[in-house]
């Protein structure tokens, strides 16, 4: 049973405006995500939700200044970006990056080979990719296109979930996967996430600004994120409260800083 444990995590980014050149964004995050569970993290803009996501994946822009992150007791913070991915941490990005000249099929196979530790057998792999793409309503021609190049917002998000389904991580972090999606795309993407959740093999950290996606993906726990930490936790009913009341109760003077 894979368990991601985040304890008292402090993270800063480089900043020109502060004396020591760092600005603290995460101010002591505590969270435990177990395989099979779904946690929604909700919060206003600027509360640090995405910083949490990118810090867990190891983006070089963020500096961890305190706290620990472990996956089954292994020190995630000591791992490089690719080591984290191979250890089972997957980040579906809010703004997936274009990689010119690298085809989706080549990219998927290269990453599957890296994550699984061996090249998938060609015959079963082709079938697996084809079927997964069909379920996500991704046109087969996508396989020959360059990664994220010229993709619409919805196509990028479906491509992220395609990777989620193929790479089968033990911890999936979905960073605002719902933002910018129309209802149809949101449904298709959510179904993809639910297929992965139903295996019971993945712990999901669903980061979102809106409650809309929670109609499709039912969380076990909801956490409100403000000012760089979790300020309230509860069940699905907490999302309903946020839906009705917004974040004003958690935000001083209209901002989260």
């Amino acid at each position, binding site marked *: 049973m894979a368990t991601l444990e985040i304890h008292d995590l402090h993270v800063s980014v480089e900043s020109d405006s502060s004396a020591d050149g760092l600005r603290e964004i995460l101010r002591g995050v505590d969270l435990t995500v177990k395989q099979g569970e779904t946690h929604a993290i909700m919060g206003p803009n600027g509360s640090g939700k995405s910083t949490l996501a990118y810090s867990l*994946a190891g983006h070089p822009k963020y500096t961890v200044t305190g706290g620990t992150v472990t996956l089954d007791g292994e020190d995630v913070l000591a791992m490089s970006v690719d080591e984290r991915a191979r250890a089972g941490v997957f980040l579906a990005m809010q703004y997936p990056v274009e*990689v010119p*000249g690298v085809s989706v099929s080549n990219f998927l196979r*290269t*990453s599957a080979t890296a994550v699984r530790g061996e090249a998938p057998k060609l015959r079963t792999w082709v079938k697996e990719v084809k079927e997964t793409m069909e379920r996500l309503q991704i046109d087969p021609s996508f396989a020959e296109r360059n990664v994220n190049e010229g993709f619409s917002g919805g196509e990028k998000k479906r491509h992220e979930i395609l990777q989620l389904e193929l790479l089968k991580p033990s911890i999936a972090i979905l960073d605002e996967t719902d933002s910018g999606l129309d209802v149809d795309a949101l449904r298709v993407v959510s179904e993809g996430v639910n297929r992965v959740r139903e295996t019971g093999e993945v712990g999901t950290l669903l980061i979102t600004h809106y409650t809309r996606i929670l109609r499709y993906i039912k969380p076990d726990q909801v956490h409100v994120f403000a000012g760089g930490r979790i300020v309230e936790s509860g069940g699905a009913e907490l999302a309903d409260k946020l839906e009705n009341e917004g974040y004003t109760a958690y935000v001083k003077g209209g901002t989260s800083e």
Partner: protein
Amino acid sequence: MADNIPAGSTTEGAIQVGQPPQQPADARVSAFASYNVADFPVPHGREEEWRFTPLERLRGLHDGSAEMTGGLRVEVTAPEGVTVETVDRSDARLGRAGKPVDRVAAQAYSSFEKASVVTIPKDAVLADPVRIAVHGEGGVAYEHVQIEVGAFAEAVVVIDHTGDATLAAGVEYVLGDGSKLTVVSVQDWDDTAVHVAQHTALIGRDAGFKSVVVTFGGDLVRLHPRVIYGGPGGEAELYGLYFTEGGQHQEHRLFIDHDTPHCRSNVAYKGALQGRDAHAVWIGDVLIRAAAEGTDTYELNRNLVLTDGARVDSVPNLEIETGEIIGAGHASATGRFDDEQLFYLMARGIPHDEARRLVVRGFFAELVQQIGMADLEERLLGKIEEELEASVS
């Protein structure tokens, strides 16, 4: 017509890209040409055609002080039916493709002792390439090569440059009517070599010329491929790949002189740079003269900057003197290898070095496929990986 040109030079990141020079429209037309080195003043570095080149690294090729010491081996291997000759300077065939247009090219033409002449007879279709191996053993050399393809003949010529040399060279391609010539020139020099050359192609009526220039090595490589059309219906495809490492200066200056109606040209050069003081220069001059109605031309230059400290100057320059053309355009863009791409690939479990390889291979792959020579494709991609490998370790 001129309004339809999809022109533009874009830059990304903090990369310096040369601005198109401000100059009179006929500046290129009047480019001076002569076989005699004494007709050219010694460049001082501020001239338009020399402003990117570090003259002090030319080892005297530009000012007459580089005395020939020899040490250059030129071996030509050709299939049956092809004539390979070593001729004296007085041979009347030499110089037909065009005159030297700068001081070093004229120095080469004024200084070589023997020239190599490769003649592919009329109507011959070669099954195997002609191979020219140019190997330097450290000396100063002046070289001249002429390749003539007879009417309706078809040939592939591969010129490989290896070793160390201080070399000024002239290469002529004379294409007979309806002939097809593909030339691959690989600059795989040691990192100490200096190589300056003018490649002049005279393309006959309805003939097709394809040039593939591949530059990996050298301390300083400056190549000047020129295309001149001898009759209507001629076609030129000029492709180039370069991988410029720290401290290297690699300069490709192209000139296509559309002075004849109904000719086509297509240029695509791509380069990757890495390391401190890696400097790549690409100049793409295309001139469509008033007589060249029905011209169709496009030129493209793309650069991928892999690390800090590298510099690209990319200057497309299109001059059009007639509106009666099919198309004319150019594009130039220089992008930085971006850490976000690296992060994205690594976040999918792909190790750092493999992620870099994927991106760089992807950058060149499209061009390599466009070149459409299967055996060359593997060699080029293999060489690119080698360069990346060497730099990573």
